[in-house]
């Protein structure tokens, strides 16, 4: 801490008033360039169809002035609250306190989640929102394996979500293809096994596996890429998948999407008003809310599965290898870690959970189209992971809750919603650059080993 303190005093004179002014002027200049055409000139179709335009230099000047003043304010605030570098290293007690709160918060959140359908049974809107939040929690946890643990910046995660959704939708319509050998050319024929009410349960793992396969396919070309380059390729990959879906009309229905996707069943028992539905079997009156409650618990279970797998793997050599790879790939190799399999496994596993979430999304909506799988979704999930604190399971859940919940909360703000969120994200990243829960919990082996080691020292000394 002593070094930090000296650091702070030594940087103070460097950021003088002239520096602030220069920075503000630069920001204003950038704003001028950006908004000159966007704000300064307005075009519209005139009465006879020709293009008319008029200038709005007053507004332009106002915006540039606002940026100038705002930049000064931000810089002053920054100096007042200390440098970012200092904020990045919180005192140890902050971490341990957070860990303690986390220990209580996580079970509390889980119990709350389990009770949501009971408490809000009559509020369909809230149940729907809960399902949406949990979907993003699951996506966040899935992406967290790739980005948070393995440190591979993936901007195309939505591709696996799409692969999962389309795998489920298409296979549910056609039936599960089962190839078998025949005696005559071409020696292989395919039977389509109709799954009926079991469609979701059979196809859920299939969708996950197909998504994992695509994860490996993406992984191979990007094995040697890192950081910015990896981000660009994954971004392109996400777009390729979406564009293929959009343009392969004969298979995917293109922009029209796929409708009539089978709804999930309670292990074969449909949630319908008919005599063979769950309600009739239990002898209770049918209500459409039953399906919502079921979907809620289904996505909760899937999300918890994702969480459980991620937590378990972190304690195993493969999870440790992911984290070590994030820190230093070269050192990993020298320690005998096979980077190829380590990377591919992270991609595959992250993609698999994305695929599960996609299959769930398809069965929940009953209709999917490429519009649901735009880059914005990838960005949203990545934002959840980064805001939550990369690698922290609790942080990701909290971030998903605040982001998706916040989106709904501020629905009244209409188009300003995005503006508010942008501002909140910028502020959060300035003050908590490691995310909401930036504290990295050591994997459990540590505790275990420490006790062993302590025993040994006693032995050695005695």
């Amino acid at each position: 801490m002593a070094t930090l303190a000296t650091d702070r005093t030594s940087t103070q004179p460097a950021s003088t008033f002239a520096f602030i002014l220069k920075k503000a002027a630069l920001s204003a200049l950038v704003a001028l360039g950006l908004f000159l055409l966007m704000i300064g000139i307005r075009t519209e179709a005139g009465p006879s169809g020709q293009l008319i335009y008029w200038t709005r230099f007053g507004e332009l000047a106002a915006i540039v002035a606002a940026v100038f003043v705002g930049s000064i304010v931000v810089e002053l605030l920054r100096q007042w609250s200390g440098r970012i570098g200092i904020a990045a290293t919180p005192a140890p007690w902050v971490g341990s306190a957070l860990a303690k709160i986390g220990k209580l918060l996580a079970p509390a959140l889980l119990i709350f989640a389990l009770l949501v359908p009971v408490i809000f049974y009559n509020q369909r809107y809230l149940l729907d929102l809960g399902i949406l939040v949990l979907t993003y929690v699951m996506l966040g946890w899935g992406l967290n394996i790739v980005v948070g643990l393995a440190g591979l910046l993936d901007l195309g995660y939505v591709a696996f979500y799409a692969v999962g959704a389309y795998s489920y939708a298409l296979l549910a319509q056609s039936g599960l293809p089962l190839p078998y050998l025949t005696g005559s050319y071409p020696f292989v024929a395919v039977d389509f096994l109709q799954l009926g009410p079991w469609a979701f349960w059979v196809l859920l793992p299939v969708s996950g596996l197909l998504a994992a396969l695509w994860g490996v396919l993406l992984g191979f070309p990007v094995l040697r890429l890192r950081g910015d380059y990896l981000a660009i390729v994954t971004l392109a990959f996400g777009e390729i998948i979406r564009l293929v879906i959009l343009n392969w009309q004969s298979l995917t229905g293109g922009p029209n999407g796929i409708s009539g996707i089978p709804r999930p069943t309670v292990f074969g028992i449909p949630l319908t008003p008919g005599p063979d539905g769950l309600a009739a079997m239990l002898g209770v009156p049918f209500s459409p809310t039953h399906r919502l409650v079921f979907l809620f618990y289904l996505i909760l279970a899937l999300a918890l599965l994702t969480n459980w797998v991620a937590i378990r793997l972190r304690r195993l050599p493969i999870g440790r290898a992911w984290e070590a790879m994030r820190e230093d790939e070269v050192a990993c190799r020298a320690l005998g870690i096979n980077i190829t399999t380590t990377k591919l496994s992270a991609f595959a596993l992250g993609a698999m959970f994305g695929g599960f979430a996609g299959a769930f999304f398809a069965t929940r909506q009953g209709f999917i189209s490429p519009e649901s799988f735009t880059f914005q979704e990838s960005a949203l999930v990545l934002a959840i992971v980064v805001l939550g604190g990369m690698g922290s399971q609790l942080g990701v859940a909290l971030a998903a809750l605040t982001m998706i919940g916040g989106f709904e909360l501020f629905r009244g703000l209409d188009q300003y919603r995005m503006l508010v969120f942008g501002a909140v994200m910028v502020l959060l990243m300035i003050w908590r650059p490691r995310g909401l829960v930036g504290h990295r919990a050591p994997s459990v082996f540590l505790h275990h080993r420490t006790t062993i080691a302590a025993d040994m020292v006693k032995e050695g000394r005695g």
Partner: protein
Amino acid sequence: MSTITTPLLAIRGLRAAYGKIEALKGVDLDIQPGEIVALIGANGAGKSTLMMSIFGRPRARAGHITFDGRDITGLATHEIARLRIAQSPEGRRIFPRMTVAENLQMGADATPGSDAVRAASLERVLTLFPRLQERLTQRGGTLSGGEQQMLAIGRALMSRPRLLLLDEPSLGLAPLITRQIFNAIRTLNREDGLTVLIVEQNANHALRLAHRGYVMVNGLITMAGAGLELLQRPEIRAAYLEGGRRV
């Protein structure tokens, strides 16, 4: 160390290059089981390149590297490491956000071994470097330079290596810490029979520690001999001891 045994590591005519710049121009080097060999030379002589080449990167353009009678020239880095050749790389390269205990565990993860064996290697590391014992739950990045070097060596030892490669372990360390680390290496060699190749700019320290030494200049081995004998040679003193001080 002139006993007639097969060398643990034998390098013959090794050439390696970064693009068009040839860093190793035909290097011959032998390490017998149980000895400490020092490789000294000026900056840019190719010492680190040689060490990395043993690990397959940069790949050898010509020549052979044999470890325990097996040609390892074309193997991938992680396969070479799994033969239980360990290294404490230049710049230490510990995992800064992981704890000391996790760093050590990473060293043991890739080589097979029972829990008891791992516990034994951990005990060995912690008795050699008691400082690490105090720091087990601390993040690697928060250690001092000397502690990080101890951690890097400890991590390498966790795989119970048959050959340990050390790249500039004294770089940037206080003399007292350097002495501690060199003492630990001597102990490992005497008590555990560990074979060590140590790359150093600190010729004085390294040659006093080593049984034998090699001097590298411009990608070639120019001199070889017993450590103390090399240390007495006037040209070595001029180039790496007195001369080194003047620069």
